[in-house]
């Protein structure tokens, strides 16, 4: 899933400026599951913004709505009336959802209420970890199902570097050291009797499939509707 975190309230307040009518738009998919931007969080943020505006002496009309997926046009069509009656929309979707709103309602001011962090999973209750960097050419078949692009701090393909110690990476993220991805890869492949997979030198990666090749796009001719133009 896409994992996100809510921005500090002061930052969101500043983004709203003097706008009177505010719509907080939640999203029912990834950010609901990671407790950052679902219906519940939209309700809480709406209340906080109302209270803050009251305390500041400039009350605002704040409403909330949550769509199933902010990143698809058809779900956005369903909230057209609420969007059009607001001066500003605070998107509690990920960066994709916020941009979809802004693109679908070009006259409307859309501001982000979240910081989109990564693609990952909940490792335990209240803790999410990154698992995929969307490099566009999956290596997991060679690395025991553990991604060195997303999980090695240096994205090594022939690791681990000399900083691997007791299963941990040499760097500190936040207040802890992440696991050494290459220790995990080694342990997994050894246990599976498949160390031969990393005995060979992995050649340099073609990063064109990643963000380095520019904004990415997939065209599936088989899924195109009849009569639509096919651009590649």
């Amino acid at each position: 899933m896409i994992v996100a975190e809510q921005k500090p309230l002061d930052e969101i307040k500043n983004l709203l400026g003097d706008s009177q009518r505010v719509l907080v738009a939640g999203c029912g998919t990834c950010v609901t599951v990671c407790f950052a931007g679902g219906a519940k969080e939209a309700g809480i943020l709406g209340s906080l913004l109302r209270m803050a505006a009251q305390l500041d002496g400039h009350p605002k009309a704040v409403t909330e709505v949550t769509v199933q997926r902010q990143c698809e046009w058809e779900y956005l069509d369903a909230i057209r009336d609420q969007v059009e009656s607001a001066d500003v929309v605070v998107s509690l979707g990920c960066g994709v959802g916020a941009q979809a709103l802004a693109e679908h309602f070009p006259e409307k001011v859309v501001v982000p209420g979240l910081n989109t962090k990564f693609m990952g999973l909940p490792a335990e209750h209240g803790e999410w970890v990154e698992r995929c960097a969307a490099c566009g050419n999956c290596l997991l078949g060679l690395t025991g199902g553990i991604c060195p692009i997303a999980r090695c701090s240096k994205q090594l393909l022939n690791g681990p570097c000399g900083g691997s110690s007791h299963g941990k990476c040499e760097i500190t993220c936040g207040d802890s050291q992440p696991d050494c991805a290459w220790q995990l890869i080694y342990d997994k492949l050894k246990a599976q009797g498949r160390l031969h997979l990393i005995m060979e030198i992995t050649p340099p990666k073609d990063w064109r499939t990643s963000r380095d090749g520019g904004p990415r796009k997939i065209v599936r001719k088989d899924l195109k509707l009849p009569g639509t133009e096919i651009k590649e």
Partner: protein
Amino acid sequence: MSDTNGSPSNLEMVLKSGQFAVTAELGPPKNADAKAVRHKAGLLRGYVDAVNITDNQTAVVRMSSIAAGVLAWQEGLEPVIQMTCRDRNRLAMQSDLLGAYALGMQNILCLSGDHQTFGNHPQAKNVHDIDSLQLVQMVVGLRDRGRFQCGEEIKGTNPCFFVGAAENPFADPFDWRPYRLAKKAKAGADFIQTQMIFNVPRFREFMQRVVELGVHQQTRILAGVGPLKSAAAARYMRDHVPGMDMPDAIIERMEAAGQGIEDKNLRAAACKEEGIKICVETIEQMRDIEGVAGLHLMAMEWEEAVPIIASRAGLLPRPNFSQESAPCPAPN
């Protein structure tokens, strides 16, 4: 191993002659002062076969390793240019390799690079377009295949470096390290410099496996050693340097060296003397380990210790093949 088109470097000649090689390290200054490099080079000249010029070591901005390498060579000290994968992509690295060779550099050491969060620009974006193994392959490809990494032919002079890589025998997973070293040899590394060794029995264990795999016949391994200045430095290495194996016995020796000495300067001198003693003892043990072809003597910001250690460990005089290698470019 290399079959260079150009003249071999002094380091290559020493290693190929079968003599026990000695390299040291020179950290460029955090400013644009050429004199600082020349001064350090002067301290090391004649006592080592070549000197590594670090590349923004510990991810702190310093004078470029290539520029400082040229300055060192002008002082008569053969450089090994360190190149990390942290700050440059494959275009910039190859461009710098062409430039370094054009300026007379002949040795290169290929490294991943310390993570930028350890340095003075933790906000920086890191590159890691390729890793250290792939860098070895790329430099070897420029030399032996006369081709850029993309496969395109180099028309005209190709850079013929003597190519080195590093390995940390003490990092985890310990069992995997000899195989990773074997991958570096397979990638074409002519020589290997190891992390600093304090735990000699552990290093012996590592080397035994390396020899069993026959890797010592595919590349030349220089054991990393260095003098400690104080017990505090030893403890810092144990606690804060990733992948460093510092036995308690070494720390205790360093602590005992300073005990009972009231005068601060005398105490520091006694500790330094003990550090040098430990280093010399370690060197003596390295000479007996099968597969060790030489030493990499790291005395960071303590270059004065190198001649003392080299002398006491019986490493002098150094052979000099520089007459037979490419002449040093005269400063203009």
